[in-house]
């Protein structure tokens, strides 16, 4: 591996304590990607069946197993890159396996904080915190938090946002 290829967030001047996401997040995301792939496989099976006859569904199944396996591996590795850190003045979120992103949101600019949980996430008891600023492009997500942790994070963020209020 290239010496330069360290993740961009490890170069931050002062050390940051990254909070990991809940370990269940990997399961949730792998399941979600498996489901998505299954839908794709079913859609792909129709023309394959018309084209190849009864071998079509088998091909679709085989393709599904291979692709879903690869995808799950990628997703499982991606989950590890997620992390967030609360600093004095801002919230840092990092993620991305191939394209690495480090987002920095100052507390003073936070306009809205949403909690959301999809069906699979709910099954495993996870919650996503979404933080919005006035810039439409910068909605920051912190996925895969324990509901209590998420609520606590939201309350902390809300209090900090009210304390240091900055304009547009």
């Amino acid at each position: 591996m290239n010496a330069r290829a360290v993740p961009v967030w490890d170069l931050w001047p002062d050390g940051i304590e990254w909070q990991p996401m809940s370990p269940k997040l990997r399961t949730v995301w792998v399941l979600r990607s498996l489901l998505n792939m299954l839908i794709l496989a079913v859609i792909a099976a129709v023309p394959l069946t018309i084209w190849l006859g009864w071998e079509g569904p088998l091909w679709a199944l085989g393709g599904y197993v291979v692709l879903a396996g690869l995808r799950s591996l990628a997703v499982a590795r991606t989950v590890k890159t997620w992390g967030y850190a609360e600093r004095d003045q801002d919230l840092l979120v990092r993620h991305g396996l191939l394209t690495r992103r480090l987002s920095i949101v100052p507390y003073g600019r936070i306009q809205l904080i949403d909690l959301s949980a999809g069906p699979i996430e709910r099954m495993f008891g996870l919650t996503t915190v979404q933080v919005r600023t006035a810039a439409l492009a910068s909605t920051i997500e912190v996925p895969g938090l324990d509901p209590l942790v998420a609520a606590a994070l939201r309350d902390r963020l809300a209090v900090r946002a009210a304390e240091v209020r900055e304009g547009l």
Partner: protein
Amino acid sequence: MSAEAEQVHGDEPAPPLAPEPYGPMPYTPSAPPEGMQRQRLHPLTPLLESVRFLTAVAAAVGVQMFTSRNFLFAVYAALAAAVVGGIASLIALQYRGFVIWGRELHIYGGVFTRSHRTVPLDRLQSVDLVRPLQARVFGLAQLNIEVAGGDGTDAKLAYLKHDRALELRAELLSIAGRPGAQPRTETADDSTEDVSEASSPLVPPVTVRKLALASLLEALPVQLTALLVFGTAFAVTGSIFGFTTVATALWFGFFAPALFGYLQSTISTVNRFLRNCRFRITRDGGNLLIERGLTDTSHETVPVDRVTAVCFDEPILWRRKDWRRVEVWTAAVSQQISVLKSTTALPVGSPAEVATVAAEALPDLPAAFAVHRPPRRARWRMPMRWKRTGALLDEKAFVVRHGWWVNTYVALPYARIQSVQVVQGRIQRLQGLATVHAMSAGSIGHTAKAAHRDVEEAVAMAAELRRRADMAAALEAPRLS
């Protein structure tokens, strides 16, 4: 803000609130008494508002007239239109009007669906005077009233006599307690060469000749490329399929979307030229007043404390002339969505003029920046524009430069940075590069993007941006709308 806070906290116990409420007091609308005399709009309003419809009807009647050779039909149609339109206008006018009641402006409208709009003048942001062509013919004008925290649509008062509109604008501004409230000594014939004007323009007026040349130079590369591409495509397909009528028709059908886009860009260039004619920018207290337009005159107000960023555009053929265009981004919140507006503060100008306007829009902003280029190993990724790309942490603003066709400097003051992102693509990672995004309020396109910086520099830049943004934001009072 109170609605937002509720939404944030949901049904959970709310965290302790800040000692005092932020922003303006909650606004409670009131209604003026029933018998209050409404001020009417100009009687020609319904006619002018339906001018497009009337034109379409007239065209249809004209076609009908010429095809059927029945000239009486036109007479009947005109008579019927006059009677019906007149009665409808009279009825409509009864229900339309406005009242200034205390610190509110009430606008009434609609016959079947009544509408009553209340404009809290405390939250007035700007009152723009617009004069569309059809209204100018009759010496009328329209007022666009923009309010902080509104639903994004301007309240409109259309149409009023021009001098009445100016009076009303001054009245509204004075109620709102805004600078620029004194009725301006502007004569009704809106001549730009009027020397009796109280405030003198910041820069000498842009002559039509210079503007025309600038527009031409700006459009020329696009036009030439488009013509070249279309010509080549036409020649190639022609040599393959022959130049028969069918082949040509098919060709035009196939390229219709591209041709349409080309046509539209040409029209927008011409429109922009017409809009920027007779450009005049003046400073009035905390506002920049912009008046411009050849066929449709418009007056715009840019509050200087609301400026989010200043852009300097340099189309490729302007380089030799050393001309620049200045655009100013202003942000406002409406319904939790920030809207960013880009206003031309100078359509074309020499470096000195550009510097004047820039310094007015953002105090102490220089107009020339010595930006640092990305490292050399990024050059193959942008061979043409590498030399003209760069970033700089200036004294007051984060400055980035990008673009080849149109080279742009974006100066984003530190106090206006909403959030910062460092993004590293997969090839960038192998090269040890990263891109820094500094986001301003508003839509997705409006970010200052320093592309392909060295990784360590990028991260340090992001940290520094955050530090400076905090420092700059601490210096100024929060502005929530």
